[in-house]
């Protein structure tokens, strides 16, 4: 450690690089954990001790089912639930999950009305007697300054409801307190009123043994299902798994780049101490002891970095939790996270990754240290000679790793983890090509620059001559910049694809829908509003949409979008279709469905001849698949059908949204205002085509905010890597620079030489990062995204990215030369002294 303290800058950079890598991993882990845990807690609060649930179609099930179950079948361990989502206007338009229960049936299921998570008795009186009575969490109430008796507005779909707070749900501890966040409790009748579900229930909760459940299921009408209660939370976990895995993988990339830096720093420290190690060997210290010493040093610094990283990660976590929660709310389901979980697992993972990366990076230099011959010191040139001899072997190993990574991606097609592993292995393979490619490029550079004089030749030769240093720095920068290119091209391609898809999909001029409470949930607006819109002067046609979630016997919950189509869609919207868009729609009107690409991919539907079985109000029905369409609104996929067909199978007259086409010659803005006026009093959002398109892209950009931020973290870590490598290189060359100075090279020339060297390193990294970044983008687009989310993304080359990458690499490398050169300027005496000492 004394040696580490003697070089505080290099040691500091090592610690910072570990800390940054660990911080990113910890922050992402915390965000994922916090969101998952918040969701698990709220699911637990809602599901309670229920073992099974009886569910119906989009409109729930008739409450007579419950009555029959309890009265005729005498099954008492059952409780009715009416639930839905609404926007609490006075609570910052927060989405709230409203659960209507029967307090007399609740006791075995949930603890809202017992002594631990209790509502006080006087609150219960109001609960039964006051219309619109709700109980909400005491913590939420305190945060928003809500008092008992306060009236709150709840927007449900296009309808506005009034609720009255009659009491608070007290929780005995923080954990159960969090479970109650964003939850309103009301009685069945009030919930039925809120969600226009008179005489209907969302589900019936049961506590039943497997055999009892089987017996109950056998007696249920065909339009109802009985499923284990855990199924719902499992499905939710699966839905976000790919998203969270992608974030974790990107966070690990930052650590990978950091590992190069650690390798570089430890190597530098070992090479500088070869003489010391040689003397130690001659005094009887074994190679294994030296190996252990180097590893121990590295582990200690890794632990220090990990500890700092944990602290930084917790700070970063506050931002990432918000970003991740926002994305989950945008894309998947509603989750309220008001506190951050720092679990022991996250802490252990962070420390283990920090120390692990430090140890892994130190193995090779530690092994190198054990080869120090007793007393004699190995000349630097001999070390470089050995590295040069290793170059072909490294390149060959690189070929094997790239082939191995490609094979992993190609042959294990179902696993996203395997795809990421393949990507990482392939990337490490490319890293092993760096020394060989650097040697080749520097030969070319020496020829080109040599014409400009000896300095040019010298610069190119220095890069090759100190390959053990320069190749690692180039590799670190190359990985970081190629990740930047890969992720930028992927995001740009995705954005272009989504923009193009929106152009093809958003054909109408005006879109009307209730404010979206949360993704993946049905929203409802009054059907009469469609007629009011149709009657507005200037509206030529309307399309009506009904978006619901239905059960599918083999697939679980499936999003169904039922539409009336006024305008035929572009053929480009279909990935596979048997006929023209007109013919496809004819088939859909005849009872077939169109499934989106993610749906087809997740459920392995063939390009043609597939079918989907859904649980309709008349029992299970199999719909033939007429086409597979591109869609980027849901990574779980959607089944699209005609509204007429939907209403034939489901007793659901509600609608979710309306699209209006403006007559030729009419002023779109004026018609939009007229629609708004016609719908006054209803809680709906009226948006023009462009506004909706922009809003969609805002959600898109928000989704990729973390990914975009992570690539910059990788660049920062790589920048630190290049600074440290350049510093190491220049510090080692102090004597050489002294010789050049003694021979008459001016400081300006020394600056030029150093900048040329680091510039060449940056340019090499930049050039290498272009094909690597492109390959990375291709894997992200064609493999990872497709397997994670099921989307086909069309490659958009984004040419400006490559120039930016080259500029970024060179700029990083040039900037990295500034500190060592400044040091050199202020150390002319050291330079002179260095000439005399070996």
């Amino acid at each position, binding site marked *: 450690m004394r040696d580490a303290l003697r070089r505080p800058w290099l040691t500091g950079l090592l610690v910072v690089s570990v800390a940054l890598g660990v911080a990113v991993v910890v922050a992402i882990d915390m965000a994922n954990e916090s969101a998952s845990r918040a969701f698990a807690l709220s699911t637990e609060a809602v599901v309670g001790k229920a073992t099974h649930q009886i569910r119906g179609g989009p409109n729930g099930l008739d409450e007579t089912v419950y009555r029959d179950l309890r009265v005729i079948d005498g099954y008492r361990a059952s409780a009715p639930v009416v639930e839905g989502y609404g926007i609490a206007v006075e609570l910052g338009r927060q989405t709230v999950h409203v659960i209507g229960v029967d307090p007399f049936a609740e006791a075995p299921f949930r603890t809202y009305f017992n002594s631990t998570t209790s509502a006080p008795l006087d609150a219960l009186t109001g609960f039964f007697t006051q219309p619109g009575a709700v109980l909400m969490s005491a913590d939420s109430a305190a945060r928003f300054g809500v008092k008992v008796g306060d009236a709150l507005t709840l927007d449900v779909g296009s309808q506005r409801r009034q609720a009255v707070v009659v009491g608070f749900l007290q929780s005995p501890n923080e954990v159960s307190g969090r479970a109650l966040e964003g939850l309103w409790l009301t009685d069945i009748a009030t919930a039925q009123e809120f969600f226009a579900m008179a005489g209907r229930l969302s589900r019936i909760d049961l506590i039943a043994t497997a055999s009892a459940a089987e017996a109950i299921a056998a007696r249920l009408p065909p339009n109802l299902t009985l499923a284990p209660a855990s199924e719902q939370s499992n499905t939710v976990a699966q839905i976000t798994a790919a998203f969270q895995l992608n974030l974790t993988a990107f966070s690990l990339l930052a650590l990978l780049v950091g590992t190069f830096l650690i390798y570089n720093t430890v190597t530098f420290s070992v090479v500088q101490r070869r003489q010391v190690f040689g003397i130690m060997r001659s005094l009887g210290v074994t190679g294994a002891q030296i190996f252990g010493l180097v590893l121990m040093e590295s582990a200690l610094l890794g632990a220090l970095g990990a500890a700092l990283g944990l602290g930084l990660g917790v700070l970063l976590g506050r931002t990432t939790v918000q970003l991740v929660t926002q994305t989950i709310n945008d894309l998947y389901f509603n989750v309220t996270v008001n506190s951050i979980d720092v679990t022991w697992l996250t802490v252990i993972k962070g420390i283990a990754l920090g120390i692990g990366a430090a140890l892994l990076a130190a193995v090779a230099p530690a092994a190198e240290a054990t080869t120090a011959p007793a007393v004699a010191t190995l000349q630097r040139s001999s070390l470089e000679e050995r590295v040069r001899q290793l170059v072909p072997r490294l390149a060959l190993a690189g070929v094997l790793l790239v082939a191995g990574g490609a094979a992993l991606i190609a042959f294990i097609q179902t696993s996203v983890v395997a795809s990421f592993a393949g990507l990482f292995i392939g990337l490490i393979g490319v890293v092993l090509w760096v020394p060989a490619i650097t040697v080749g490029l520097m030969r070319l550079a020496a020829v080109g620059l040599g014409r400009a004089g*000896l300095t040019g030749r010298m610069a190119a030769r220095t890069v090759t001559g100190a390959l053990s240093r320069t190749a690692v720095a180039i590799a670190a920068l190359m990985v970081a910049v190629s990740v930047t290119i890969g992720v930028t091209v992927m995001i740009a391609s995705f954005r272009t694809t989504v923009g193009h898809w929106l152009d093809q999909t958003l054909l109408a001029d005006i879109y009307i829908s209730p404010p979206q409470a949360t993704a993946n949930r049905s929203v409802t607006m009054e059907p009469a509003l469609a007629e009011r819109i149709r009657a507005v002067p200037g509206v030529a046609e309307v399309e009506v949409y009904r978006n619901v979630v239905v059960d599918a016997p083999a697939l679980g919950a499936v999003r169904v979008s039922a539409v009336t189509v006024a305008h035929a869609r572009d053929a480009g919207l279909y990935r596979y279709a048997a006929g023209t868009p007109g013919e496809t729609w004819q088939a859909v009107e005849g009872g077939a469905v169109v499934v989106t690409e993610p749906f087809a991919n997740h459920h392995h539907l063939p390009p043609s001849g597939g079918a989907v079985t859904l649980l309709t109000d008349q029992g299970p029905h199999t719909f033939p698949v007429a086409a597979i369409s591109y869609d980027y609104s849901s990574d779980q996929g959607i089944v699209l059908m005609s509204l007429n067909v939907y209403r034939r199978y489901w007793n659901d007259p509600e609608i979710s949204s309306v699209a209006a086409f403006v007559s030729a010659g009419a002023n779109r803005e004026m018609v939009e205002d007229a629609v708004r006026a016609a719908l006054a009093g209803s809680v709906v959002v009226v948006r023009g085509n462009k506004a909706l398109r922009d809003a969609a892209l805002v959600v898109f950009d928000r989704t990729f905010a973390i990914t975009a931020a992570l690539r910059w973290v990788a660049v920062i870590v790589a920048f630190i890597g290049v600074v440290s490598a350049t510093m190491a290189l220049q510090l080692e060359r102090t004597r050489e620079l002294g*010789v050049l100075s*003694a021979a*008459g*090279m001016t400081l*300006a020339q020394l600056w030029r030489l150093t900048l040329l060297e680091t510039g060449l390193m940056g340019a090499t990294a930049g050039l290498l990062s272009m094909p690597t970044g492109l390959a990375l983008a291709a894997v992200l687009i064609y493999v990872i995204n497709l397997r994670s989310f099921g989307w086909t993304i069309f490659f958009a080359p984004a040419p400006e990215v490559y120039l930016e990458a080259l500029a970024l690499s060179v700029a990083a490398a040039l900037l990295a030369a500034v500190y060592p050169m400044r040091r050199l300027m202020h150390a002319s005496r050291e330079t*002179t002294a260095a*000439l005399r000492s070996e």
Partner: protein
Amino acid sequence: MSQPQTLIRIAHVSKRYQEGDRERVVLADVEAAFGAGEHIAIVGRSGSGKSTLLNLLAGLDLPSAGEIWIGGDCISRFSDRARTLFRRDHIGFIFQFFNLISTLTVRENVVLTAELSGWKPPAARAQTDRLLDAVGLLDRAQTFPDKLSGGEQQRVAIARALCADPPLILADEPTGNLDADTGAQVMGLLTALARERGKTLIVVTHSSEVSALADRIFRLDHGRLLEVAHRHPA
């Protein structure tokens, strides 16, 4: 026999270093003059300030007091850049540890000083090859320094010091890292080449064999430079 024209004049030069709260005087009011083409040996105990004096003569360091004149120029008044440019054209340096640039070939190491002095490439290349031939290493011109023995590396360093044709060669313990036989060969070569080309050669050394080759021998003792031997030309 006429006295050689004075090339170097050291006028009341002192050099002091601060060591903690103490001041250490390395050179105290040193006075000397060396003629053009003269060969000078400076001897003294380790730490007596020999190399400090050499660094001052090379303009790598500045005196705490006094002046150093080379030709008609007072280099101790020059800026760092002016000293570097002066060194480029007027001084060749030979180090104990050879200090060849490991990333350059033998030929490139030698041509470096000529190119820095602004020689045209063909002339620089011809000069380099002449000198490599003179030191017996023309056939190793494309070799990298780490493939050469110590003696060979020092012969390359001699060629490098002479390549830009400077009037003054400074050598800091040029045989200190070589065995006796190789040291004698290298020193013989350096002396011969310097005399042949009329160069002033100042050698800092511990070796009596090396100092015996000089025209005059100076001893540095307690910061004072004293002439201890004067060899009259035969």
